[in-house]
């Protein structure tokens, strides 16, 4: 049984090393980063296996005493096993055609589940939400043209803008007519889309920076499971890695190419040995 303090300390050093190994890519591609990259691929593949196999076991074989699975008397799960096994024929050439039947069932169910509720859940929701009350009123019954204290709230201007911008965005996507009305409507739609992409970019910056700040907090021991070990590991591994990276970079530098030797002067007539019997 490993003591908890050892597991935490070892975990802190391993976690900090792997974090800095990935960050080392920012300087240059190097073997430490490649090691971390391959570890990431392996963990990404290996981690899922246990969870999915336990789920399969509970569903199809069943827990003793339960009603689910083969142990619960549901013999038809044998067909699910068969379909699962034939899916593995995707790895062969000769029986590849078998895998298509298993995939067909999966795609059929997925397509059916999506198609049957897409219009109700997504399409109709978005359309009905767009056409809002164009004359919202306050408690006194006056129409709110625009409310500076609640600038994004319901108002005539905001609700009208939403209707116009949604309709013109859809027109921009769907119509390529050269008529003036459609073209101008599409231009207005593009304004909405550019604003949307700009706002999306601003939110993306927040997410990316947040992720990076989170990792930096981990390295500084803010919010980790063994803060002091993380801090020490950060300093020790960080300095070591910087030295190693500079040394690697220096060793991997190609030597400067030698200057090309000057080519010898062409042979003159006087120097060429004469053969007997030739005129020159």
């Amino acid at each position, binding site marked *: 049984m490993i003591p908890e303090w050892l597991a935490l300390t070892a975990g802190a050093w391993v976690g900090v090393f792997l974090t800095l190994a990935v960050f080392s890519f920012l300087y240059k591609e190097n073997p430490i980063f490649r090691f971390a990259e391959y570890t990431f691929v392996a963990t990404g593949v290996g981690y899922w296996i246990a969870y999915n196999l336990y789920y399969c076991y509970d569903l199809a074989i069943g827990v003793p005493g339960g009603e689910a699975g083969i142990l619960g008397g549901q013999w038809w799960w044998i067909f699910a096993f068969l379909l699962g096994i034939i899916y593995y024929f995707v790895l062969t050439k000769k029986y590849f055609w078998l895998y298509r039947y298993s995939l067909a069932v999966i795609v059929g169910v997925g397509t059916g589940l999506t198609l049957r509720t897409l219009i109700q859940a997504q399409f109709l929701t978005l359309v009905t939400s767009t056409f809002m009350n164009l004359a919202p009123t306050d408690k006194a019954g006056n129409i709110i043209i625009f409310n500076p204290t609640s600038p994004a709230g319901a108002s005539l201007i905001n609700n009208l803008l939403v209707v116009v911008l949604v309709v013109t965005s859809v027109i*921009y996507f769907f119509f390529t007519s050269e008529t003036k009305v459609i073209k101008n409507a599409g231009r207005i739609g593009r304004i909405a889309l550019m604003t949307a992409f700009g706002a999306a970019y601003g939110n993306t910056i927040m997410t990316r920076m947040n992720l990076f700040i989170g990792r930096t907090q*981990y390295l500084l021991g803010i919010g980790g499971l063994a803060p002091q070990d993380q801090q020490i590991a950060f300093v020790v591994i960080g300095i070591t890695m910087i030295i190693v990276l500079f040394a690697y970079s220096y060793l991997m530098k190609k030597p400067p190419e030698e200057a090309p030797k000057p080519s010898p002067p062409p042979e003159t007539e006087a120097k060429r040995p004469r053969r007997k019997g030739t005129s020159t």
Partner: protein
Amino acid sequence: MTWYKRREGPLIVTLIVALFVIFEWYFGEGAVIPEATTVSGQVQLFVAFILAFVIGVGAVSVLRLHWHRIQRRKPGDYSWIYSGWIFVVIILFVVTGIFLGALSGLRTEEPSYKWMYDYVFMPLSGTMYSILAFFIASGAYRAFRARTAEAALLLIAGTLVMLGNAPIGGVIWPGFMDINTWIQRIPMMAGIRGILLGAGIGAIAMGIRILTGRERGYLGGGE
């Protein structure tokens, strides 16, 4: 080629299964044909099982690829060591998660499995995505140019949203937060709603193409 090896067989299976699932939604619930709901539910559980069961295909593919790399290693080339390391890590996860987990009865709460999640997977996964912050900052410096009026609009909207998201924006001027809220709730929402409507129609079109057999790419190459 015999008929069951061709693509038409699976396409017909896709059509029948999808139509049954759609049919069940409209006629099964509400006790018109309640058996349809029972059968459809069981088919969905079958598919849930299959999708979980075939997680091994990815693992086998990765292991096969790296096994070939190890077999084809050349003297002086040490990249095969990384491929060997992949084997080690995957086997470690399988042993701790499945064998030790089942033996101890703790399943995925097995301490060694959780240790690998907390101290190997979490730092790696978090850091891999976090280096995007550097690329996006570098991209902002090198590529984000106000070349046209629309690009300038994109830039201004992005900058205003950034100022609204960061607390410093509210410290500089409280109006940045109101502007950020307005941009996100009116023009951004309207533009994205237009995109989602288009995507919804695209998804319906794709679904109909799959049902009618015009979309065959998912079945892979060959006849």
